[in-house]
């Protein structure tokens, strides 16, 4: 058993962290929050140039053919950087969907361009009822898609979207849609994290291509993998919020002492740490299950997700609190983490969804599906 990272892993992490700290500073995050389109294209390009976007893409399609462990490291560092980029939609979902479920020609067409940063492919899974396959109501008839998908992250910056929709037999599948088609209308939504452009997309007889490997089980597995990577992103985010708060607690004085010397502050920071490390342990198991193709992936993903959601919400809310008056000003940093935390929560579904995923696995259908 070996439940930690190797020296090579640490080197990957250090290289990426240096690159990100050059580009994706918190000042940039503040700027993105004020911008019309929050997307930080400079960081995205830098990631492409460094070969990071193709990390898990096969060599045949211009990638580095690395595995889930390496991708998890990237996720954590991107979460930590707060970079306003579509890591989850593209690297967590679109790339594995195309690579594992797409056709040869889809792979050839899309993966090299994604890796080079020349094209963004996002995913449109969710509808009002949630993001699980059984909540899909968009429909494809004779290769044409109609329906309403919302929320979709980075739709305004993407060329294509991979869309969950019902086939003619009523089975949820994934389809590739060209977002520049005139039958597609994209309207912006007001997300709590405006560094994460979020839209509703309406498809009206839009020509689409099936990802032939996709079916409800494959979609669920895809979501499981994305949840594991998102957990690392969330852990990176939460840990930085913790350290930011720790630094503030060491600097800020009250009653003649650093506030971090008060147990009310110190013990809350310890609780944040404990929740983050618990989430990290679950995420490690998830990464291993994802990398090794272990059958326990869906359980592992669920517990990783649940622990990460808890760690992020507690840490970011209490980070605002422990910053005192400064904490609830717009100009301060803590709310950036709070907002991103909510967005990462919404994108792959809330705790109730993942609790059901866990229990339905464990209780083995003790409860009839609704």
């Amino acid at each position, binding site marked *: 058993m070996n439940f930690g990272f190797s020296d090579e892993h640490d080197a990957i992490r250090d290289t990426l962290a240096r690159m990100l700290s050059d580009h994706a500073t918190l000042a940039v995050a503040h700027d993105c929050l004020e911008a019309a389109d929050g997307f930080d294209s400079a960081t995205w390009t830098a990631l492409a140039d460094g070969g990071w976007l193709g990390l898990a893409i096969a060599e045949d399609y211009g990638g580095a053919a690395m595995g889930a462990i390496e991708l998890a490291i990237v996720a954590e560092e991107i979460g930590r950087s707060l970079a306003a980029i579509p890591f989850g939609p593209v690297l967590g979902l679109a790339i594995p969907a195309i690579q594992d479920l797409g056709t040869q020609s889809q792979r050839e067409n899309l993966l090299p361009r994604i890796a080079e940063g020349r094209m963004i492919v996002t995913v449109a899974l969710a509808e009002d009822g949630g993001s699980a396959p059984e909540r899909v109501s968009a429909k494809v008839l004779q290769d044409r898609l109609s329906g309403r998908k919302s929320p979709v992250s980075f739709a305004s910056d993407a060329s294509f979207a991979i869309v969950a929709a019902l086939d003619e037999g009523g089975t949820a599948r994934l389809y590739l849609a060209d977002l520049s088609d005139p039958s597609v209308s994209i309207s912006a939504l007001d997300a*709590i994290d405006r560094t994460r452009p979020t839209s509703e997309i309406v498809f009206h007889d839009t020509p689409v291509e099936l990802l032939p490997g996709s079916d409800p089980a494959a979609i669920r597995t895809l979501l499981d993998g994305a949840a594991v990577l998102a957990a690392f992103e969330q852990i990176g985010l939460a840990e930085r919020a913790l350290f930011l708060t720790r630094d503030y607690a060491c600097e800020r004085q009250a009653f003649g002492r650093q506030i971090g010397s008060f147990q009310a502050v110190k013990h809350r920071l310890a609780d944040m740490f404990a929740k983050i490390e618990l989430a990290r342990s679950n995420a490690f198991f998830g990464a291993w299950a994802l990398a090794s193709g272990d059958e326990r992936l869906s359980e592992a993903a669920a517990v990783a997700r649940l622990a990460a959601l808890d760690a992020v919400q507690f840490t970011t809310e209490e980070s605002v609190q422990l910053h005192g008056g400064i904490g609830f000003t717009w100009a301060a940093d803590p709310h950036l983490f709070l907002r991103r935390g909510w967005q990462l929560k919404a994108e792959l579904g809330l705790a109730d969804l993942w609790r059901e995923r866990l229990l339905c696995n464990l209780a083995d259908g003790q409860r009839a599906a609704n």
Partner: protein
Amino acid sequence: MDFSDSPEEAAFRAKARDWLDATATRRNGSEKAQDHFMARDADEVARARDWQARKADAGWAGLTWPRAFGGRDATPIEQVIWNQEEGRYAVPPNVFLIGIGLVGPTVMIHGTEDQKTRFLPRALTGEDIWCQLFSEPAAGSDLAGIRTRARREDDEWVISGQKVWTSGAHYSTHGILLARTDPQVPKHKGMTMFLVDMSDPAIETRPIRQISGSSSFNEVFIDNLRVPDSARLGGVSEGWKVALTTLMNERFSISVGRASGGARAEELIDLATRVERNGRPAIEDDEVRARIADFIARQRGLEFTSYRVMTSLSRGQAPGEEGSIGKLLLGKLRQEMGAFGMDLAGTSAGISAKVGDDVARWRNEYLTAPGNRIAGGSDEIQRTIIGERILGLPPEIRVDKDVAFSEL
């Protein structure tokens, strides 16, 4: 123990209602109660002044002030009854809360005759609007850590420094300002209180944008403001004592103030009926039901606690033990309810333009609640106060008690 109006209370209520009916317009159902104390623009300030003048004219301003100062000598419960009744009408925000609730009582106790004559009537009629210049960037929870300096030059004081979290500073005419006049003594002993004119060009006001996006507080920069010694409220170096009077009245004012106006937990039932969770109406989900029921129990508890506080006040007792918990519990409750309201939108959590305006509404609740957990004494400070003043636990070890401020 009686939850209903006593005959005297009922008579007061009827009288208030009569006057309000004759003078103001009822809110219609969809219009929200006026639940804040900040004007959004100059027009609202003007309307607030106009309304206050009419109230003062008819004897409904400064209800709890003594008759000698133009008040009505009303009981705290009468104040609450007034607030309830006035809340049914479309009235402008009460920007006079600090002047009437905090500054007035402080001037009555610590002011000179001249100060009482100059300031009290104009506070009552709404001619003057007051703000509270206490907190500073480096003195929040530890208010006695203020650094704004007031230096004596002949018969004037020269004041410089920076204040922060000042509600309404940009439209206030006057401010009550705490400054350090002697840094050579321990921190609590070297402060003095002043009453200053906000229109002085030495005072600059800048709004602070909060995480909710709105700006209800200001930074106030004071650069060599010169005031005569007659602007001093209370003795030199007695500022802390004067400030405690203001803070006690702030607590009282919050206790009997108009109800928080935040969202009601019951509204979550309605939202949960309209959205789905796991393919069913969310209101059918037992966890949703459990969360909502617990929110309701907590919110009712806070509401009933405020009645206990009023009962104490009416009996002439200090707003005691029970009052301190409201401040501690309200912010966290609002934060949790806001988060839960967003959660109910599922994958649209935090994303508005879905499910009507609900997400935006609960999101705003969520993003303003952190202010409740900090302003007026953080949750952490409240716990220390409860622990020490109510439960009698030994105090924190203080390293700054007997040290000259300049040595800290």
